[in-house]
């Protein structure tokens, strides 16, 4: 399968095979006008199989979302056909506006304008808790 290389844009590489679609949705890529390629289960020397997303535009992407969904992903920013910036994304310490608190007793359920903010409390178990009510992220 051949996907054209991009001149100016973003390549999200080393996505765990099968997680590409989730990331695609969470990053809101379905609403973009530019070309977006989601490549699933492509061969990877390091991972065996992996997913890749190529976005044919230099748009701002949320590194928090990427790190939360699949830490270890590489984000390459392409400018003029070459890699201008390369970032390996780790689990973010704080998540703002990425996941919603589902605790019905949390203040965020009644105050709609409040940002839903979660803090990483255990890196090993990837546990995030709401900063307001301390409910565990589901």
């Amino acid at each position, binding site marked *: 399968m051949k996907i054209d290389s991009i001149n100016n844009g973003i390549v999200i590489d080393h996505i765990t095979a099968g997680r590409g679609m989730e990331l695609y949705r969470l990053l809101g890529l379905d609403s973009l006008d530019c070309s977006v390629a989601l490549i699933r289960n492509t061969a990877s020397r390091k991972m065996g199989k992996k997913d890749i997303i190529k976005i044919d535009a230099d748009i701002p992407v949320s590194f928090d979302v990427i790190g939360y969904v699949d830490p270890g992903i590489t984000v390459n920013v392409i400018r003029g056909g070459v890699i201008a910036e390369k970032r390996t994304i780790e689990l973010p310490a704080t998540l703002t506006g990425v996941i919603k608190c589902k605790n019905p*007793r949390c*203040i*965020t359920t009644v105050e709609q304008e*409040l940002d839903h903010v979660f803090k990483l409390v255990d890196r090993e178990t990837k546990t995030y808790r709401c900063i307001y*009510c301390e409910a565990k992220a589901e």
Partner: protein
Amino acid sequence: MKSLIDILDLSTEEIDSLVDTALDIIASPAKYAEKCRGKKLATLFFEPSTRTRLSFEAAMMELGGNVIGFSEASSSSATKGESVADTAKVISCYADIIAMRHPKEGAPLVASMNASIPVINAGDGGHNHPTQTLADLLTIRREKGHFDNLTVGFCGDLKFGRTVHSLINALSRYTGVKFVLISPDELKLPGYVIRDVIEKNGLPYVETRSLEEVMPELDILYMTRVQGERFFSEEEYLRLRDSYILDTEKLKGAKEDLVIMHPLPRVNEISVAVDRDPRACYFKQVLNGKYVRMALILKLLTEAGTI
């Protein structure tokens, strides 16, 4: 701006210092009678809690300060749809410090993020109630003289009792503390409190259903109310309820210097006859609550540069 939202906002040194200030207030009240003259405490109680509110108000008045506020959401701008953030900004223009009670968890944190004055969490739903924990700690210090090397029994509803979780959190930072967790299976201490607090600090604990069995080893017995609505059936509740009622009979095997505590209000989980036992400290806890709130108001206003 320093506020008190969670008991863990305070280091053990800060807790020790607050307790020392409270003890000094008890010893020399006149020294503190004018400390907050001209300052105002706003008690923002979005749900009624007469005892906690009056404790805060009495504390501020005994420091020579004044009190403004409301005692239920219906008499506040919340009924008009004002957000907690806006309320905090507005009250910051009127008062020097806020004590807030709110039914939603995290509301006092939102207030503290938006206020320009210190905010004290006076209870946010079933989440935190740090000044109750401070009252508990002052009581333990006054009765036992220290926090280390104590065997502390918690009895009753350990699942939903926020005062239990907070006190376990606070005591877990001291050495040699052993926890004895006495409850029916339905109301056991949540696994995350055991895992993230007790085990993480390497402290020993035992879980049991029998109060009588463990009574002889306890230095502190912290009673809580077993509420009928927590059970799946009325039958189950009635079967278990009496096992967790403290009476003079159950106290027979207890240490002479046991300290019996309860966050109150009590319904029937401590027999009235126990009130006459010198080991009953739950009304002393109420008084200690006022003293430690005085110490806390002083600390926060001093740190804010208000006094």
